[in-house]
C-alpha cells in the first residue's frame, strides 16, 4: 500500500501510525508513478494521533523531532522512504538509533540529515544580497533543500541593524527579518528597486574575484566540486560563466 501524505510533520506522523505494521508500506509526499493494481491511501493529518505518536517517539529519543524536521526539509528523491524507515526503526527499538550506522535505515537518515545541514552551512557563504533602494537586503536562492528559514539566525546575528529577505524562488517562500522579528511567508515574485550603488559594488566584487585568482593554477573541477554550478545563478561573480 502507498500512503500519501502532504510532507508536513503531523501528516507524516499520522501516516507513520497507519503504515507502521504494514510490511509493504511505502510513504510518499509526491505524485508517484503507480504500478498496476497498487493500492493507495491519502492520509490526512490527525492532530491528536500525531501528537500521541510524537510523545511516544520523544520518549524513545528526545532529539528525534529535530531529525524529523531536517528529514522533511530534504529535497532528495528518497526522502520519504528514508524518514519512514528511520522512524520505523526507532519505534521498533524504542531507544535512540542515531548512532547505529551499520543499520541501513540509520545510515541513510544520517546521510540525508547531513546533506541538509551541509547545505545550510554552504548557504551561509553562498547567499548573495542585493541592496535595495530602501537599504534592506534581498537575496534570491534556489537550494536543494527547504532551508531558507534555517538561514535566519545566522544572518540576524550578523546583520542585526539591517532588515533582509531570503527568497527561495524554487519553493516560492521567503524568510524575512524586519529588523526586530523573523517570519516566513509565501512569496511568488519580488520586485526589488536596487540602490544607486548596487551595480558598482557588484562590478568591484567581480573585479576582485578575477584578480584574486591564480590563472596558472586552474583547477576547475575542484572549484565546481566546492561550489556546484546549480548555485551560480544568483552569484554575481559566476553569472558570466553560465551559458
Amino acid at each position, binding site marked *: 500500500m502507498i500512503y500519501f501524505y502532504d510532507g508536513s510533520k503531523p501528516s507524516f506522523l499520522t501516516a507513520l501510525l497507519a503504515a507502521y505494521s504494514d510490511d509493504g508500506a511505502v510513504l510518499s509526499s509526491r505524485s508517484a508513478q503507480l504500478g498496476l493494481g497498487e493500492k493507495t491511501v491519502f492520509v490526512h493529518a490527525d492532530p491528536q494521533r500525531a501528537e500521541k505518536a510524537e510523545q511516544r517517539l520523544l520518549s524513545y529519543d528526545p532529539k528525534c523531532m529535530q531529525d524529523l524536521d531536517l528529514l522533511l526539509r530534504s529535497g532528495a528523491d528518497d526522502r520519504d522512504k528514508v524518514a519512514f524507515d528511520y522512524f520505523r526503526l526507532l519505534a521498533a527499538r524504542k531507544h535512540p538509533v542515531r*548512532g*547505529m*550506522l*551499520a*543499520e*541501513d535505515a540509520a*545510515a541513510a537518515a544520517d*546521510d540525508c540529515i*547531513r*546533506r541538509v545541514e*551541509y547545505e545550510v*552551512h554552504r548557504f*551561509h*557563504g*553562498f*547567499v*548573495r*544580497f*542585493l*541592496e535595495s533602494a530602501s537599504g534592506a*537586503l534581498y*537575496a534570491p536562492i534556489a537550494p536543494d533543500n527547504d532551508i531558507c528559514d534555517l538561514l535566519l539566525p*545566522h*544572518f540576524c*546575528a*550578523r*546583520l*542585526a*541593524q*539591517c532588515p533582509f529577505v531570503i527568497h527561495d524562488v524554487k519553493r516560492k517562500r521567503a524568510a524575512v527579518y524586519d529588523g526586530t522579528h523573523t517570519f516566513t511567508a509565501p512569496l511568488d515574485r519580488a520586485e526589488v528597486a536596487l540602490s544607486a*550603488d548596487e551595480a*558598482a*559594488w557588484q*562590478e*568591484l*566584487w567581480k*573585479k*576582485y*574575484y578575477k*584578480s*584574486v*585568482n*591564480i*590563472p*596558472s*593554477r*586552474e*583547477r*576547475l*573541477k*575542484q*572549484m565546481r*566540486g*566546492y*561550489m556546484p554550478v546549480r548555485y551560480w545563478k544568483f*552569484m554575481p*561573480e*559566476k553569472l558570466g560563466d553560465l551559458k
Partner: protein
Amino acid sequence: MISEEKLQILTESAKYDVSCSSSGSRRKNEGGIGNGYAAGCCHSFTPDGRCISLLKILLSNDCIFRCKYCMSRADADVPRATATPEEICTLVMDFYKRNYIEGLFLSSAVVKSPDYAMEQLVRTVKMLRTEYNFHGYIHVKGIPHADSLLAHEAAKYADRMSYNIELPSETSLKLLAPQKSKESLLLPMKQLQRETLAFRAEKRKGYFLPAGQTTQMIIGASPEPDGQILRLTQSLYRANGLKRVYYSSYVPVVQDSLLPAVGAKPMREHRLYEADWLLRFYGFSAEEIVEDDGNLSLELDPKCAWALRNPQFFPVEVNRAPLEVLLRVPGIGARSAQKILSARRYAKLGFSDLKKMRVVLKRARHFITAGGKFFGTENQAVLRGLLTAGEAQAGAVQLDFFRELQAARTALTGEL
C-alpha cells in the same frame, strides 16, 4: 569607493598569500555589523580551486624592501597603488553586507618604513572596528622590524595575525629576503604569544587575537628538504603555539639568478599539507613522517608511506582499536573513525557493515581486520603497487563532502 584599478593592483599583489581562513573566532556583534563564525565560512571559489573567505588585499604595494621572490619589491617595475584606510573600510563594509566575504585579510608592503606601514595597518583596523562598528573577521599581517607596541595595538582589533617566516631556513632567508631577519619574524610572534596567554590568564574583557597566529613559508624557492620543513612546522606548533602553518608553492613571478626558473610541483605542496594534517589531527610526529633530510614520497600519501614502513602495527581490529589507532589506518579519516566508534557500540562490525556505513575500504582493507577477518594482501610489494595505483586514479584527491564532512568543513574554510 575604491577604483577598480587600485583594487586590482592591491589584490594581485596579495593573492599569493595562501591563508584565507576565517575560522577560530567567536567575536560577537556588538551593535554594528558582523560576527565571528568559529568553523569558518567560504563565500566563493575561484577557478584555481581556492576558497574566498576573506577580502585579501594590501594597503599598499609600494615597498622599500627587496625580497627576491616578490613582485612588489622596491626595484620591480610594476604599477604601484596605496589605498586609504577609508577606502578599505567602506570596501569591507559593502562587501560584507552583501555576504561576499567573511571579513578582511589586510596586509601591506613596507611602505616608507616598517613603522609607517604598520601604523597604517593599525589605523585601518582600528577605524573599521571603532568607527565603522565592524565585528566580522579580521586577519592582519605583521610587518617585520616594526615597533612592538604597534603589533600589540593591532592585536587588540584583529582576530588573527601572521608573521610569515617566508623561507624554511635562516640561510635562505638571508639570501632571498635580505632585509628581513629571523628575529624580526620570530620575536613578534613570541611577543604576541606571551601577550595572548597573559590576556587569557587574566580573563580580561574583549578580545586579543581570538583566532591566534599563523605563518607561511615558500616551498621550492630554496633547497630545504621536506624533513626540515616539517620539523620546523612542528616546532612552530609546539613552541610558538601557532594555529596553522601554510605552504605556498614557489611561483616564478620574478627572474633572478638566485631563484629556480621553475615553480614547485603542486604535488609537493599537497603532500606537505597532508603531512601537516597528520601532525595536527592524527597524532603523528614529524620524525615518524619523514627523516631529517628526506622528502615525502610524491607517489604515496604520507600516511600510506608510514603504514608501509611499519607493518608490525597492522592489521588493527576495528571492533577494538582505540580512536588514535584507527586514525593511523590508511584510508580511514576522522569521520570514518567516528562512525566506527559509534556503530560498534551497538553491534560487532564485519566488513559488510563497514561497507554499509560507507567506510571506504579500498586502502583500509589491507590494514584492518573486522571481527577477526582480513580481506587485504600482506605481500608488501603487491600492496605498494595497489596503494600507488589507487593514488594515481584518485588524481587530485577529491574530498567526498558527505563522507568526510568534518574534514571538508575545515577544507572549506580555506585551510587546505
